[in-house]
């Protein structure tokens, strides 16, 4: 799919998009970190041997 071009957007919309993007990245990193933590906790708390 072609990447959307934001160059013709007004400054406020651009700023809104930038903030949404930054929030999505922050939330994604946080949730990704939780997934890794749960994985490690599972290994530590419920060892296979």
């Amino acid at each position, binding site marked *: 799919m072609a990447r959307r071009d934001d160059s013709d957007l007004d400054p*406020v919309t651009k700023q809104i998009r930038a*903030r949404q993007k*930054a929030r999505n990245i*922050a939330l994604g990193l946080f949730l990704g970190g939780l997934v890794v*933590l749960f994985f490690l906790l599972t290994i530590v*708390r419920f060892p296979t041997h």
Partner: protein
Amino acid sequence: MSTGAPTLDESMTQPQALPADWRDFVALTKPRVMTLVVFTGLCGLLAAPGTIHPIIGFTAILCIALGAGGAAAINQWYEAGIDAQMKRTANRPIPAGRMDRENARDFAIALSGGSVVVMGLGVGWLAAVLLAVSIFYYAVVYTMWLKPRTPQNIVVGGGAGAFPPLIGWVAVTGDVTLMPVVLFAIIFMWTPPHFWALALFVKTDYARVGIPMMPVVKGEASTRRQILIYALLLAPVALAPWFVGGAGAVYAVAAAALSAAFIALAVPVGLRRAGEGDAMRPEKRLFGFSVLYLFALFGALVADRLLANAGVI
């Protein structure tokens, strides 16, 4: 439906033109306060007898941090109307209009609930229950109930900040014994002189919004006297870990020296009378040192434990 929270200017409850920045969500958790919470929680965890797997230990500290952040966010959601009228807090995300109130509330509930559940599943349910109690204590007992009603708010409410070392300790041992209760008592006794030193130099803000802080209700002289009394009472409590055999000589020497310095700074605050336009230097000095005091005291506790474990002392 009414939330019962203090009223807020209508413009602050409207959706904002710009969505809140991720930094505003971080600011909602009061990261500077969280630093002390995380540090004391980590010290409780490191000073506890026994071992804990690093992953579980990390999870415990993360949950303490997230729980503290959730409680702080509930506080900011509830007090947004008051914060807007105080110079010190007017630039927080909600009163400054960078975040709508419902977003803050949902974020706070997610952090608080999530931290308790993860603590329970990943670390232990006693630690999770203590974390839940500490969140409830700060967000409801202190913020909603005590703070707007009594000048003793910070005395009783100080218990909320005293939970982290107890939770850190319980994460390792799985039970509550005398030593973690002593750590709780240290922060409990430390909170009034720490917070009242701050309240003395921002009392006009508290008076304006009707929060019955000690200097506003009982006056400066009474507050100063009580700061000195609590500073004197804090010293034996700070030495209690040594008395009960939970810490050694390194901690005892550090606690004695730090407490002596704390009293030395509290004496001029307790005995003086500030005039109109006073720069409040002794009060600011005491407030600054009180933060250092707690960091250093708990740091000494961990150093003492690590040196003992290494066989150095």
